[in-house]
Each structure stands twice: as C-alpha cells, then as structure tokens.
C-alpha cells in the first residue's frame, strides 16, 4: 500500500472514533510532511483521550493540560464535575443543603433534586428522633409515676376508710347536728381523696400506652370492669344501653378499660351536683360504637379541638393527661374517638372500633 493510502486509512480510522498506530515517515517530501502531520493528529487525539479517561472513570483530580477548544470543553466538564463533588461534600460534611448547582442542564437539575430530597429526609429524621425522645421521656415519666402512684393508693385507701367510719359516727352524733361544717369537711376530705385517685389514674395512664396486645374481647365485660373500678357517687344516675349480642372485638382489654375509666372519671367530675351518666354500645356495620354521655357542664367549642392534647386542661387543678391517653390508645387500636359537647347541657364521647373481619 502506498503511503498516501496508509494515511487515508489512518484518517478514516480516526473518523470512526478509533486511534490508529503511528505511521512511519519514509520521505522528506510532501507525502513525508503529510505523514508527520497525520502522526501529529494521532498524538493530539491520543493525548486528549488519555487526559479525558480519568474523567470517564470518575477521577476528577488529573489536570487537563491539552490545549485547544476541544480540550477546553473537557476542562469545563471537569470543572463542573468538581463543583458538583464539592457541593456534595458540603452537604455531607457540613449539613449544608442551602447551596445548589446553577446551570448544568439536566445533570444540574438531578443534582438539585437529590439535595432537596436529602434535606427533606434529614428534617423528617430529626422530627422522628424528637418524637422518639418525647415518647421515651413520657415512658420514663410513666414508669416513675406508676411506681409512685401505686404507692399512693395504699394510704389513700386507708384515709378513705377512716373518713367513712368517722362520717358514720359523726352523722349520728350531736357534734354532727351542732356543727354542719364537720360533715361538710368530711365530705370534702372524701372528694379530695377521689380527686387524688383520679390524678394517679391519669398519671398511670401514660405507662400504659405501649403496643396493644390484642385478643378477641367482649366489650361489655370491659365496660363492666371499668365501672367496678370507678367510684360513681350516689347523685349520678347510671344507665347502660349495651346491645344484647355484641360481637367480640380485637382489643387490648387493659388499655381499652383505661379509656373507659378516664372518660367515666371525667364525666363524674363534670357533674359535681349529680346528673345522668349513660353508656351505650352497639354495632354499626363494620364498627363497634361506644357512647359515653354525661349531663355535666359541657365543653366550650374552642376547647373541644384541643381536648385530646396532652397537658391541655381547662381545669385549674389536675393535669389534662387523661384524654390524651385515651386518644393515644384508641389511635393505636386504629379506632376513632370524637367528642360532642354543649356548654350547660353535657358531653358525649363517641368511640369507634373495627370489628373483626368476618
């Protein structure tokens, strides 16, 4: 093959994007010069290829020293990629999600979206961590309060017994007749013992809101258990409207009992001068619906929305934990709890629980 054909073959090869080997320079004439220039071209392309290869392998550290517009493009690409790597390291090291890539078309957009997603993930993680700390704190408070609360119930029990005895004696005595305040104050003592017990109950509620351990349960039995545990004063008329054949429902009986106890205690507190307490349970399609109503002082509209927030209370004394615990327990059972109330008329709590899928 003649030298010129060799040259043409080499150039054709480069035109296909491949690198041919060097050509031998055989003469010093025009063809020889053409051969030298072709070799020069091969060298330039080879050099560009070598300098650009690290970029292809993700190595941004090798300097591009080749000259010319084409090398310039590779330099720009390298600079862009270095910028992107630097932005990423800022995100990684300094948590800095604020500086985004400007320009760089589709690549830049993808980069920015990734940084944005990272920022949102980080915020969600922080919120979750705060929630965890909060719930751990609550659990720790619950445990501590639990121990203390249980201990307190023993002396409260003895005090309540003693009040009962003394009231009985004083009522039949001349002292009771002559000094009405004596009986009145004994009643106060009994009421405050009940209030103390309720506060303990609310506190203990927090130690209860763990994962429910569910089993098929008869809701009427849980309601009866709750009633046996909550002292209901004589001046409150209790009506139970429990449907005859209520199906069993998958609940944690201890936790749900806590819910009834809390609501009943609140109802009793809302009716210091007596009233009506009605507890109803019925099946409504796929739901079990329990309603607990009182004819007490009612809850103003502004307070109704906040009533399930922990620590929210309109009472001057007492801590508003009880209803927050109720909501937490019902939520964990994937049920629903709502309240309807009218100031001066009364309040109704409506709790809905899913029945077992048949």
């Amino acid at each position: 093959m003649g030298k010129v054909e060799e040259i043409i073959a080499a150039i054709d090869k480069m035109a296909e994007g491949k690198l041919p080997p060097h050509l031998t320079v055989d003469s010093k004439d025009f063809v020889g010069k053409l051969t030298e220039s072709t070799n020069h071209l091969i060298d330039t392309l080879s050099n560009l290829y070598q300098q650009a290869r690290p970029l292809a392998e993700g190595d941004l550290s090798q300097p591009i020293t080749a000259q010319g517009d084409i090398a310039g493009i590779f330099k720009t690409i390298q600079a862009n990629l270095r910028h992107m790597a630097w932005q990423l390291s800022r995100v990684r090291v300094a948590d800095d999600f604020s500086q985004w890539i400007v320009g760089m078309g589709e690549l830049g957009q993808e980069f920015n979206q990734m940084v944005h997603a990272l920022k949102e993930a980080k915020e969600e993680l922080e919120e979750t961590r705060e929630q965890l700390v909060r719930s751990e704190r609550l659990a720790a408070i619950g445990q501590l309060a639990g121990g203390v609360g249980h201990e307190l119930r023993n002396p409260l029990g003895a005090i309540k017994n003693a009040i009962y005895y003394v009231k009985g004696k004083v009522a039949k005595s001349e002292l009771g007749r002559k000094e009405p305040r004596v009986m009145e104050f004994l009643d106060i003592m009994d009421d405050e013992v009940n209030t103390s017990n309720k506060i303990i109950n609310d506190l203990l509620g927090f130690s209860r809101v763990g994962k429910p351990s569910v089993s098929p349960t008869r809701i009427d039995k849980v309601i009866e258990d709750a009633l046996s545990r909550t002292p209901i004063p004589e001046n409150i008329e209790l009506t139970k409207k429990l449907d005859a054949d209520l199906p069993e429902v998958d609940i944690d009986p201890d936790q749900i009992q806590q819910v009834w106890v809390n609501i009943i205690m609140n109802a009793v507190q809302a009716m210091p001068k007596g009233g009506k307490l009605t507890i109803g349970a019925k099946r409504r399609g796929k739901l079990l619906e329990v309603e607990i109503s009182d004819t007490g002082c009612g809850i103003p509209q502004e307070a109704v929305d906040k009533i399930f927030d922990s620590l929210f209370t309109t009472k001057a004394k007492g801590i508003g934990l009880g209803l927050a615990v109720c909501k937490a327990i019902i939520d964990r059972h994937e049920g629903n709890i709502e309240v309807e109330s009218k100031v001066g008329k009364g309040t109704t709590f409506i709790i809905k629980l899913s029945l077992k899928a048949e």
Partner: protein
Amino acid sequence: MGKPNILVVDDLRSMRLTLGGILEDEGHNIVIVEDGYLAIEEVRKTHFDVIFMDIKMPGINGVQTFREVKKIDPKTVVIMMTAYPVEDLVKRAVSEGAYTCIYKPFDMEKVIALVEAIAKEKKE
C-alpha cells in the same frame, strides 16, 4: 348463722385498722394480721367466712397465701385487694377461685354490700 367472721390481711397498719374497725363496727368478728405467714396460721386455727387479702406484701404475696389458705379451708371466700389497677397476679387468683378483687381506694359501702351478698349466698 351470725354475721360472717372475717380475716383482714394487709401489711399497711392503717388499712388493717380502718378496714377491720369498720367491719367490726358492722357486727363482724374480725382478726387482723400483717402478712401471709400469720394469715396461714390463723386459717389453720379458725374457719373464716370471708378473707380480705392484700396482694403485695413482704414475704409471700397475697396470691401465694390465697393458694395455701384454700388448701387448708376450701370453703373460705377470699377477696383480693390491690392498689394496682390491672395485674396478672389478680387474674390468676380469680381464675383459681378468688371471689373477686377490689381496688384501693375502695368504697366501703360497696364492700359492706359485698360481704352481705356473700353471707346471703352462703345461707342458700
């Protein structure tokens, strides 16, 4: 049969004195003890119609005591007492034959009514 004779078992002195005192005032013969061991000794000596048994006590707890007592005197009616709202121990005792469980602080009127109901049952 006169009013049921009653044994009160509780490690808290004020609980023993007040519960026992009120029941005595109601006309019952009462014996009060502060732990399970003494309770078992008393049951060996006398038949009690009703026993009020605190659950959490030093030494053997109320449920263990209940089991021993039932072996000695199966006819005795045992009422468990506790400050703890829900307890596995309570459930076990009730499933093994304890009459019921009452929760401190309890309503003495209801407790007296409970004892009367038990006395009526025994007559029948």
